[in-house]
Structure formats: C-alpha cells, structure tokens
C-alpha cells in the first residue's frame, strides 16, 4: 500500500479516477462506449479525442519545463500551423488529393520547427528569459496566423486532412493514435537514450551541467523545437477536427492548460525531473474537467469558479506538504514509524 501511494504517478492517477467516477454519478451513461457509424463513440472517447492536442502540447511543454524554461508561444504555433496547412489545401484545385495534403502538412510542421528554432535561439543563444522570449512569438505569432488566414476562417473539405484530427482509423480516433505515437516516441527518445538525463541535469543545475561538458544550448534549442513541433501537430489536429482554420481562436490560452497539465503531472516548473506519463495524466485530468463542466451543466458564469476550486483541490491533494499537515491534524498522537512514512 505504502509503495503504491508513494509512486509519483499515484496521485494524478487517483485524481483522474475520482473525477471520472464523479461523472458517473451525474451521467450514468458516462462510461458507455458504443459503436456508431463504424467508430467508437462515448464520453471517454471524447475525452481522449479532445484531450489529444492538449496531450501533445503538454508533452512538448514538459521538455521545455524540464530545462527550467517555459513556452508561452505554443498557442500561437497551433494557430499558425493550422492556418498554413488549411490555406495551402484551400488553394489547391483538388482538396481531396493526398499528395497536396501531405505537402500542406509538411510545410506546416516545417514552419513550426522554424518557430521552435526561433524560440530556442532566443533563449539559448541570445540568453533571453524564456517567458519573455516566447511571449514575443505569442504576441506576434497570432498576428502571423491571422495574416495567413486574412482574419477569416478558412473552411476546407478534404477527407485526408480530416483524418488527422477528426476521423477514425479502424474505429479509433486517429488523433489519439498520433498522441500515443508521439508519447511513445518521446518516452523512447528521452528514456532509452541519455537525452532525458541530460535535460534533467540542465534543468536541475545549468552551471554544473556546463562544467560536466553538457552542451546545454543544443539541448535547450532541441527542447523548444520539440515543443513547437508538438504544437504544430496539435494545430493540425485542431483545424482538422473542425475542418477549418481559425487563426484568431485556435489554441487560444492553451499554453496555460498545457503548463497546468505538466505541473499536475508532477513536473516542477523549476526544471529538472520530469514525468511524461504524469503529463499525460495531467492533460486528461484537465480535459475531463472540461467535459465534466459541460455534461453536468455547470452554469457558464460559475464555470471559472468551479475550475478554480477543482484545480486548487487537485494541487493541494498532490502537495506532500498539504497532506502532511492535514494528516498531522487528524492524528495528533505520534503514529507508529511505518505509518508515519505514508504522508512523506
């Protein structure tokens, strides 16, 4: 028991489980998954589907946060990537052509990489504080997205493109498959190679890392590029899901949700140790929270208060300091040593 509660993923997982169960009380059909029109359908699938872009962005954000940085520009990157892909597809004579869609996707992701490189160079080369370096792109990037779409919503009709974020492969949402692939890829990349260790070292103590010969700058740039890449994919997903690019609103404020997901997942904003699985759980918690708000009918005007309460509660439960204090209050007499370790 002690071993389980001590696992770093225990609390995020427990919270997610509790939230899902709470939904069951309000919506008895919440856990039902059925086959409709040849694809899976149900609230849980929705959570995964709509959570997929957030998971992706949060994964990228995890890398950046591990280095002790932060990336505010992901929302803008989401908008730019979607806008570019859709505007290219919209200009094509045959929107259904797979080749054209692939070109659009490649160009959009390419541009995302450039944006990540830009952030990375500002942080690692010029030495600007990450929050400000990425704020530049956050402000200007949205302008760029609107420039691409001319402020309009670009609607497209392209089945191949729709697959990315809105359609199903073998009845399973393709977006979720992408998220799974990216998650696995990231996990392999960081944990099967030494990348994760080196990132954590840089985030934990930059000067010490420099003195052991880690080329921190490259890693920093890499982290920002990866973050932008994930945001780029998420941008494609979001636009594909509604078959339209909305340069104004796509990914608006998603950076805050992503950061929240990372932190709920147990990664510290100070950098250092990171947990990819925790991030995924964090993103699912946030998406479940949104879905809960919609399905249980929380009135729109108190939505934010509700969100504040839940976020606070989630963070408090996660905090060892809080649990230790709450625990001590309940049990004033000194507990046996073995039990005393539980809150730690």
């Amino acid at each position, binding site marked *: 028991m002690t071993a389980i509660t001590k696992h770093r993923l225990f609390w995020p997982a427990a919270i997610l489980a509790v939230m899902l169960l709470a939904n069951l009380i*309000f*919506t008895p*059909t*919440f856990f039902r998954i059925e086959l*409709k*029109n040849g694809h899976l*359908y*149900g*609230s849980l699938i*929705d959570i995964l589907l*709509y959570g997929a872009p957030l998971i992706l962005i949060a994964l990228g954000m995890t890398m950046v946060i591990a280095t002790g940085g932060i990336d505010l520009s992901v929302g803008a990157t989401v908008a730019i990537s979607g806008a570019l892909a859709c505007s290219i597809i919209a200009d094509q004579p045959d929107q259904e052509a797979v080749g054209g869609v692939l070109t659009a996707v490649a160009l959009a992701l390419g541009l995302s990489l450039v944006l990540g490189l830009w952030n990375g160079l500002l942080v690692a080369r010029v030495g600007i504080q990450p929050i400000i370096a990425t704020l530049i792109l956050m402000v200007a990037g949205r302008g760029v997205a*609107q420039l691409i779409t*001319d*402020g*309009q*919503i670009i*609607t497209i009709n392209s089945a191949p493109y729709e697959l990315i974020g*809105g359609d199903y492969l073998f009845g399973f949402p393709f977006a979720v498959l992408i998220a799974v692939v990216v998650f696995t890829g990231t996990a392999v990349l960081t944990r099967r190679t030494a990348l994760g260790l080196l990132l954590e070292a840089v985030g934990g103590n930059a000067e010490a890392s420099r003195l052991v010969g880690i080329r921190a700058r490259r890693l920093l740039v890499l982290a920002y590029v990866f973050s932008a890449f994930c945001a780029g994919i998420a941008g494609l997903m*979001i636009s594909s*899901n*509604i*078959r*339209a690019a*909305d340069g*104004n*609103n*796509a990914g608006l404020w998603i950076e805050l949700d992503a950061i929240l997901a990372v932190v709920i997942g147990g990664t510290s904003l100070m950098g250092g140790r990171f947990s990819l699985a925790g991030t995924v759980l964090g993103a699912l918690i946030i998406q479940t929270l*949104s*879905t809960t*708000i*919609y*399905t*249980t*009918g929380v*009135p*729109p*005007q108190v*939505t*934010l208060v509700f969100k504040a309460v839940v976020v606070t509660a989630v963070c408090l439960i996660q905090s060892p300091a809080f649990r230790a204090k709450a625990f001590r209050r309940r049990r004033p007499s000194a507990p046996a040593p073995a039990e005393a370790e539980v809150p730690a």
Partner: protein
Amino acid sequence: ACGGGGEDTASGGEAGSGKIVLGFSQVGSESGWRAANTKSVKDSAATAGIDLKFSDAQQKQENQIASIRSYIQQKVDVIAFSPVVVTGWDAVLKEAQAAKIPVILTDRAVDSDASLYATFIGSDFVKEGEEVGKWALEEFKSATGPVNIVQLEGTVGSAPAIDRKKGFEATIASNPNLKVIASQSGDFTRAKGKEVMQALLQANPKIDLLFAHNDDMGLGAIEAIKAAGLKPGTDIKIATIDAVKDGMTALAANEINFIAECSPLLGEQLMELTKKAAAGEPLEKRIVTKETTFTPQQAAEVLSTRQY
C-alpha cells in the same frame, strides 16, 4: 491639447487637403465576422475618398479609450468606434464633445447619454435573439410534449452573448413547452462549439433544438451531431445568428434551419454618415442596419451573392 507643438502636420492630410479624416477604433480581430466588418470599413473609406485612421483595440477597452483620446489629439474630423463593452464611455465621449468632434458608434451600443454621440449604427443583439425565439415558437407551435433546447452561448460576459440570450429566452417564455435544458459557453468558436456539443449530446439523450449564438459554434456543433450518428437539421433543429458564408451554405444544405442575420457590412453606411457629420448635418440617433432572417430556401437563393 498638443502642447502647442506639432499640429499633426505629417500625420495625414486633414482639413487642409480637403479630405475628411475618420478615426476608427475597431474592437479587435476575434472572428471572421469582425474581419469582414473591418474590411468593409476600409474598402468603403477608400471608395468614398475618406482618410481612415484605423486602430485595433485587441479586445481591450483601455486601448480603445486611449485610441479615441489619441484621435482627439490628432484632431481628426470624425471618430467612429465599435465599443468593446457597453459601459464606461462617458468620460471620453465628453472629451470628444469638448473638442467638437462628432462620434459615431458602430455595431454595438453604449449606455451613455445619447447627447454624447452623433449616432449609433448597428445591429440590435436583443432583437436577433428575439428573431430566433419567434422562429422557434412558430416551428414548435404544434409540439405537444416538451421541446428540449440547448443553447451554445458566446463568450461569457460579452454583449452579444448577454443580449442574444436575453432576447431568445424572453421570447420563448411564452410557450411553456419550450425549455432550455442546457446552456454552455462555446466562446463563439467552432472548435469549442463542437467540443461542447459533443459533451451535451452525451449528457442529454433527447435534444430537439440547438440555438447557437453565432454561425461558427453552430457549424462546430453540426460536426458533433454528425459524429453522434444524428442528422443535423433533421434530428436536431438548429438556429444560429450572423449569416456568414459558411453558415449560409449549411443553411442552404438544410443542416441549419434558421439564421438571423447580423451584417458586418456597415462600411458604406458609415462613410455616408461620416460625410454628413463632418459637414455638420444633423443625424438620426439610431440607425439599424438592414438585416433580415434566412430560411433554407432564402439562403439557397442568395448564397451566390454573399460577400462574406
């Protein structure tokens, strides 16, 4: 009050060159509707030979106030703006009045005293909500059982969202069968519209009517309804507001059943009013834009001629 120095000589040819200078402060660029609105104003100004000074408040009232002040300082001939919020314009309007610059409100109203501005041209959000309400009453007048309505609201706290909700809910109150069973904000966006609708569909097995505060949310919701294996416009009736091109297309395809128009094309009317105001002619206090409502048949007819 430019400290006597530099009477905006370089900042554009005003009275001297005979061209009228119009300072226009836009709310922002939050939607396609807004972009069409901006474009209309810019194009009409060019056609009408009016020198337009444009600023974008990025959704912030403080920016808009600062812009208007800056127009006053730059001594433009006429000021026009689409207020971000309804309230809080007295002070700056008084300043404009003191500087003898007529002010035209576009698109959205303010709650200041009518003597402070020259005229207000734009839609009436409450009326738009009422139009949809009236249509719903008509559409479901023969319904015997309860009619389950879900509403996709606009951004919480924004004027169109507040007013459209008010107008709609007040109108349908006359028929107790019509009941709003769920109302959530979709932030006026397609993505949110789809996501929220998907969740509402899970929670509410029987929905008869969807009222979305704008086309975009309605279009998103259509996707969600399709994903749930239902037929939009048939299994669930849909009514929206705006009448942008994508919305009209869906309406013509019978996926939406009713749209109340909210026209962004104020440009031409605005320029006429600007000229009059600059010439000192008296203006009507309230000019409602020419707006209408559309059914699928009407949509099919006008679709080819829609500009936005």
